[in-house]
């Protein structure tokens, strides 16, 4: 019974993560081919051992070498890292005050505020991103409003720039930042701040010396939860970004569907995964430390 219980998550991981990963890894080591599926070799089990041997001997690292030869790829990786870092920081800047205000709100208001944060998830992500096109485009609501108030005389070009991508990412991933920060701030004992004041802190000092350090686990968790998916994000840059918005998710998409080069696309995906492993491990370690600190 105990083995069964432990076995379930392992089977889950095996079927839904390890097997697909193996397939992608295999494709990344294959060669492009005009066939269905569009790569060789495929495993011919009917040929017996000779087939298996032929299959493995046909795999090589050619696609990975190709990634280093074209500077598009590493530029896309770097650009993605940059965009993910900046948007994580922007999300933190917007998310922290919201989480703080929610945690400080009267207790009877908190469930409602929490609901408001989660509510956007009830509509399709795609629709919400499309809605931003309507807001940000040259004839969009934002420009119309600004023109109407007289703040600007010429419509601003926001859509199809990196600014639009940042707006889209901050908007989409804001709840992932707010919720963990709110969770840490909400369970913070209010008497800690009174104690800090009692011992000679001003309100501002108490915030820096007590609230911020205690919110740190939530901030770190929130940053990872935003950074990790943002790094591979492709919907937002392809809908809101311009031709010069370079993100690895977009490159991946183009390799797969425009170039039909599955092996190179798979190699891009594998490298992306390797890059992501570092923050994921750091995130896990952060969660572990928090758990230990709570005991």
């Amino acid at each position, binding site marked *: 019974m105990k083995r069964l219980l432990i076995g379930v998550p392992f089977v889950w991981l095996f079927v839904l993560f390890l097997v697909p990963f193996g397939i992608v890894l295999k494709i990344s080591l294959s060669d492009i081919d005009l066939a269905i599926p569009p790569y060789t070799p495929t495993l011919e089990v009917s040929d017996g051992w000779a087939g298996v041997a032929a299959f493995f001997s046909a795999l090589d690292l050619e696609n990975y070498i190709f990634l280093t030869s074209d500077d598009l790829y590493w530029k896309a990786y770097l650009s993605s890292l940059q965009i993910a870092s900046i948007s994580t920081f922007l999300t933190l800047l917007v998310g922290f005050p919201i989480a703080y205000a929610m945690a400080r709100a009267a207790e009877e208001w908190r469930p409602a505020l929490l609901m408001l944060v989660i509510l956007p998830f009830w509509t399709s992500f795609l629709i919400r991103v499309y809605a931003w096109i309507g807001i940000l485009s040259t004839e969009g609501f934002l420009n119309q409003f600004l023109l109407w108030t007289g703040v600007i005389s010429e419509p601003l070009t926001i859509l199809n720039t990196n600014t639009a991508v940042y707006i889209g990412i901050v908007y989409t991933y804001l709840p992932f930042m707010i919720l963990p920060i709110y969770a840490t701030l909400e369970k913070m004992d209010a008497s800690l701040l*009174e*104690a800090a004041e009692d011992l*000679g*802190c001003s309100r501002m000092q108490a915030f820096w010396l007590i609230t911020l350090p205690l919110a740190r686990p939530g901030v770190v968790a929130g940053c990872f939860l935003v950074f990790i998916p943002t790094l591979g994000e492709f919907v937002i840059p392809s809908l809101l970004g311009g031709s010069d918005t370079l993100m690895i998710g977009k490159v991946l998409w183009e390799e797969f569907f425009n170039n039909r080069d599955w092996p190179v696309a798979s190699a891009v995906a594998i490298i992306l995964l390797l890059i992501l492993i570092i923050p994921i491990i750091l995130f896990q370690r952060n969660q572990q430390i928090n758990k230990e*600190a709570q005991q």
Partner: protein
Amino acid sequence: MAASGKDDVFTPWTDSGATPLIRIDQVTKRFGDFTAIDNVSLDIYPQEFFALLGPSGCGKTTLMRMLGGFETPSSGVISIDGQDMSSVPPNKRAVNMMFQSYALFPHLSVWDNIAFGLRRDGLDKDRVAARVEEMLKLVQLSQFAKRKPHQISGGQRQRVALARSLAKAPKLLLLDEPLGALDKKLRQETQFELMDIQEKTGTTFVIVTHDQEEAMTVASRVAVMNHGQLIQVETPEVIYEQPNSIYVADFIGDVNLIEGTVSALGEGAELAWAEGRTPLIGQPGAALTKGQGATFAIRPEKIAISADEPQDRRNRVQGKILDIGYLGNLSTYHVELPEGPVVKCEIGNRSRIERRDFTWEDEVWLSWSDTAGLVLAR
């Protein structure tokens, strides 16, 4: 109770020349429609160990939080050391507070917790270190300095909180239910430790508690509160022996209450309590008039129990033992009088239980001296 029994008894409240450290002058605090503190005036003197005692919701915590600056009075003035405190925020007061939850900073070590207030004062490193070491020694926690609050026991946390609030050498230390989270044995030990520390440092302590035993043990004076008002402010002995009201008598310790009417008033007050019975005699409480409805209050341990009628005492009643509670060091007898009331009587178990004189259903006599009981106006 700092020096009771000696000639130089510590009683500044009886000395008209003494200046109080804290002066609470007609202070009222309202939260919306609710009056938490109702026109309270109170003086607390330097080096006092003052207890605010009362049931939950009586306003004792609100009164303390006003001393700390966490609440402001709706009307009235609180002054500390002669200075009006109404516009002084908590971080500018020479007052420190030990919180009920201890409020230790979880991300800081024991050492840094104690140093926290000193650093805010901008003391240089060496002086902070010296003071922290001194405090750690005072609460006997030197070897735990490096630990985080979650790595020490509840009793140790309590002592860290105490050390932290004493580190800045405040004029006044406020303690909000400081021992509430400790188990009984540790609580009793810590009570004496608290008294030691209070004496050593000479700091004025104001403690909030709902535990009357705790208040009686540690305090030089106790204020019994109810519904935002001070009912009685006196030394523990007077509170116990001379409660000014049925509320105080009933709140502090165990008491038998017998209702009747005042039949005679002289040296003692006589209370007619049942048809055809000799009246009970006790010390008269304040504002008593003849013919008035009153309550006779007598502590269970002041009652003697005997098989034969004690002729030498005027206060004597006969009854039947209804119940015996055995507490180890003493036994409580519940004696039902023929007139209805059940009187509790506590007798020390000087001999072993097999040799107990009385048992269930026994007819016994209860008696007490003329001065043991109190007749209190209703």
